[in-house]
């Protein structure tokens, strides 16, 4: 009798309440794990996009700043009086234009009606800025306040303000600086 009781005690299974508690705990744990996983994926996506924007924007900033600092004496102006364009010469006498271009914008003037513009560098007269010719510097520029026109390049009498606001998906990165060309 005693041996049978011992066997019954050591081989007893879980009670229903124990199983329910464990299942509830497991469910909570899986819920937390799932939430963490989803949040991690979103953060990863966002990080990848923002990282790409930062890389592209830094490259563009470095390229434009270097060009403008090394331009020829007193060669800075707007191209055809169009806002957000910068025309300058290098020491070899080549003329370049930095400009914003969107193929859907049929008028190449100071009116920027599209949401997105790309920053290009044209070597004129060979490249035609009105047709989007030249070298692509930076894609997906938007206006800082979300409304057209874009305000990427602004010239004052002795300075160029570079205000690059790039949007891809829902991610927006803004980097702004000024350049005072050394030979202005």
């Amino acid at each position, binding site marked *: 009798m005693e041996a049978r009781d011992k066997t019954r005690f050591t081989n007893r299974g879980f009670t229903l309440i124990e199983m329910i508690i*464990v299942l509830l705990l497991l469910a909570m744990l899986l819920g937390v*794990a799932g939430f963490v996983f989803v949040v991690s994926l979103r953060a990863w996506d966002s990080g990848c996009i923002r990282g790409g924007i930062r890389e592209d924007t830094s490259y563009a*900033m470095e390229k434009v700043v270097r060009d403008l600092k090394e331009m020829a004496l007193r060669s800075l102006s707007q191209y055809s009086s169009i806002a957000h364009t910068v025309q300058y010469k290098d020491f070899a006498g080549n003329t370049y234009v930095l400009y914003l271009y969107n193929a859907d914008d049929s008028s190449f003037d100071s009116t920027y009606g599209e949401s997105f513009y790309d920053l290009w560098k044209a070597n004129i007269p060979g490249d035609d800025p009105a047709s989007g010719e030249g070298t692509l510097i930076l894609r997906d520029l938007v206006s800082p306040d979300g409304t057209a026109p874009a305000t990427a390049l602004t010239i004052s009498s002795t300075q160029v303000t570079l205000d690059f606001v790039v949007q891809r998906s829902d991610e927006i990165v*803004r980097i702004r600086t*000024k350049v005072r060309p050394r030979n202005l």
Partner: protein
Amino acid sequence: MIELLIAIVLAASGLMVLMQLMGVAIFADSDLEYSLTALNLANEKLEDLKDSDYSSVTSATESSISGFPFVDDRVVTVSEVNTDLKDVQVAVRWTQKGGQQSIQLRTYIADY
């Protein structure tokens, strides 16, 4: 039963560590972005000062910068090395992870 509870506690501990790691990774990303932006804003101020009259290169503090809400302030500290030379430092400060971060740029501006 006790084994299962121990297993759950261990798994929960592991998850907590993972969540902390995730937080570190996300903050590291925004650290980089804020640093890059602050560096350019500091450079912007330096370029402004280089473009100013020598007499108007003075110490000043901007308590905010429009378009960059994460920035606490931008501080210009000027000390005269001699009558024709100023030591200029620009610091951009922001708050992150409960502490204040900053980036400083320094240059000399001469009255030439």
